[in-house]
């Protein structure tokens, strides 16, 4: 028999179907693990509220600096009143509570670097679904602790908010938060999977965090940016992580623009699901080619 020669297999690694009961167990165990270090977890969650105070003071200083002599405080900055600006900032905090994924990319890259990823090649469990469920558990634990402080902050700052929007807007706002979670998850997973090629991706995460900081609308409302930046903001998906949900709540995006925004976000999510699957597939082929 001639010696069979083999090149890198191009066959797709099968995606492991995970039953609902298995998914529930993964979620439950990840949640339990998350709650193990109670002190660190509670402190970490609560300390995230500290920047709110500094940010409110910062915007107060900005508005005062450009104040009119009559009122003592500027009416608007780039179309935002001081109250709107604070409300916007608080809403982006809420948006980011859904879309930010602390430690996700670096965690995946570490799995690859340390070889722990082998577990997911050997056991009948899908890495991407497993990390997704773990992240849902992670967020659930976070919300359970952060819900109280969030409610308190929103209550204390209720004066900054416009009257509560319609139920339909609130529903769409909730949808944008959930889509923001999916988008943030698949973006960071794709970033983490680059670890198959680079091993160390901390500089990549730094660049991503920097772009995220400015172009998600976390620092300031994106409609403050001039038209020369608008094309970039519209071209990349970062706006959906913070600006978009806040703008929907504040009624700055409505009607056709809102429908178009959600459609674009959905397209981005589908594309990123595809990208993360492809990266994982190619990454595993590369990994298994390199001796594991």
């Amino acid at each position, binding site marked *: 028999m001639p010696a*069979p020669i083999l090149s890198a297999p191009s066959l797709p690694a099968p995606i*492991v179907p995970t039953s609902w009961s*298995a998914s529930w167990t993964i979620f439950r*165990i990840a949640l339990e*693990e998350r709650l193990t270090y109670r002190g660190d977890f509670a402190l970490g969650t609560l300390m995230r509220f500290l920047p709110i105070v500094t940010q409110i003071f910062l915007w107060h200083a900005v508005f005062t600096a450009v104040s009119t002599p009559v009122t003592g405080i500027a009416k608007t900055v780039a179309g935002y009143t001081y109250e709107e600006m604070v409300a916007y900032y608080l809403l982006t905090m809420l948006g980011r509570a859904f879309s930010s994924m602390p430690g996700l990319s670096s965690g995946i890259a570490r799995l690859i670097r340390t070889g722990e990823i082998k577990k997911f090649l*050997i056991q009948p469990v899908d890495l991407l679904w497993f990390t997704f469920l773990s992240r849902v558990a992670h967020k659930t634990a976070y919300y359970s602790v952060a819900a109280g402080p969030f409610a308190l902050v929103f209550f204390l700052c209720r004066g900054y908010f416009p009257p509560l929007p319609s139920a339909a807007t609130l529903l769409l706002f909730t949808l944008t938060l959930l889509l923001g979670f999916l988008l943030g998850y698949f973006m960071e997973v794709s970033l983490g999977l680059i670890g198959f090629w680079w091993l160390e991706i901390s500089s990549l995460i730094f660049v991503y965090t920097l772009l995220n900081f400015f172009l998600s609308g976390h620092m300031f409302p994106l409609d403050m940016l001039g038209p020369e930046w608008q094309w970039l903001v519209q071209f990349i998906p970062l706006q959906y992580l913070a600006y978009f949900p806040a703008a929907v709540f504040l009624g700055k995006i409505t009607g056709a623009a809102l429908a178009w925004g959600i459609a674009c976000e959905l397209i981005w999510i589908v594309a990123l699901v595809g990208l993360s699957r492809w990266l994982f597939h190619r990454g595993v*082929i590369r990994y*298994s080619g390199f001796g594991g």
Partner: protein
Amino acid sequence: MRSCSIVVAEPASAHRNLFRYCPMSTIEITGLRKSFRAYQKQEGLRAAIRGLWRRNYREVEAVRGIDLTVEQGEFVAFLGPNGAGKTTTLKLLSGVVHPTSGTARVLGHVPWLRENDYRRRFALVMGQKNQLWWDLPAQESFRLHQQIYRIPPDEFLRTRDELTRLLQVENLLSQPVRELSLGERMKMELIAALLHSPDVLFLDEPTIGLDVVAQHNIQQFLKQYQQQRNVTVLLTSHYMKDVAALCQRVVIIAQGQIKYDGSLSGIIDKFSQTKVVSLTFAEGRMPERLVEFGVVLACEPPKARLRIPRNKVTQTLSTLLSQGGVEDVGVEDAPLDEVIADMFAQVHDNKSPTD
């Protein structure tokens, strides 16, 4: 048997159909090779800077053409020096890496296709890698395994209880894994790996770093478990005691090739160049220049131990006996550890006895 060997580049469906009806051994490996590029960095800052834009790679041939057949219920040890290709072979068979060329089938599956049917039928335990959730009690990890391996609840409980009883860890199930000792953790790793009753078990140095008692416990457990379940086990270990206690068959791998495949005692016959002769002399009759007869391992008059080339044992003994004064004599094989260490050293110097 050879008639159902296939080229791995064929579609997966073709493999499955072929394998379904072929009688076969549990593990069949033919001409398996694995090489990969390894980055070569010279020492020093200058080399590190040069490495920023130009890197040198070396082709590492981890496995260089292995042929091996293992039948169901065999307990096979892979022995070899560090870097011999043992772990790479286990990684190939568990589908973590794919080969450069060659074929392998385990339970009728091509491992690196990573079919789910195959993943549910084998387990890999690596002594230095942790698959349990570090901050949670082991029983939570076991529950997770029950779900992902789809083990029926009653079967899961039965297997878990049996394994925890055999390994005497019943009272540790609810303790976080991070608080267990290394030996206890290894036991939990084994339980996690065995819950789904795999047909094939790959053990990569399962007793590494354990104390003598823990090593012995795990050996006893593995022995009993393998005999009861008749599973096929491939084990790599640096501890000769593991191998002697567990494996009927030993495969020695060095430089990516099989150098020996047979029984443990056969290693001595094949590779041992010397024997150890123990002598007791009558008082004052010990020869002054024992070194003339062989390498002196110990000399405490009136006793002495000499290492003598195998082909000179008879001649040396008759010389000594003819000189008179020998009260007692014993001839033993050289210790297995030494034989294997010598053999590894020879292989390292490219002077393998089989080359």
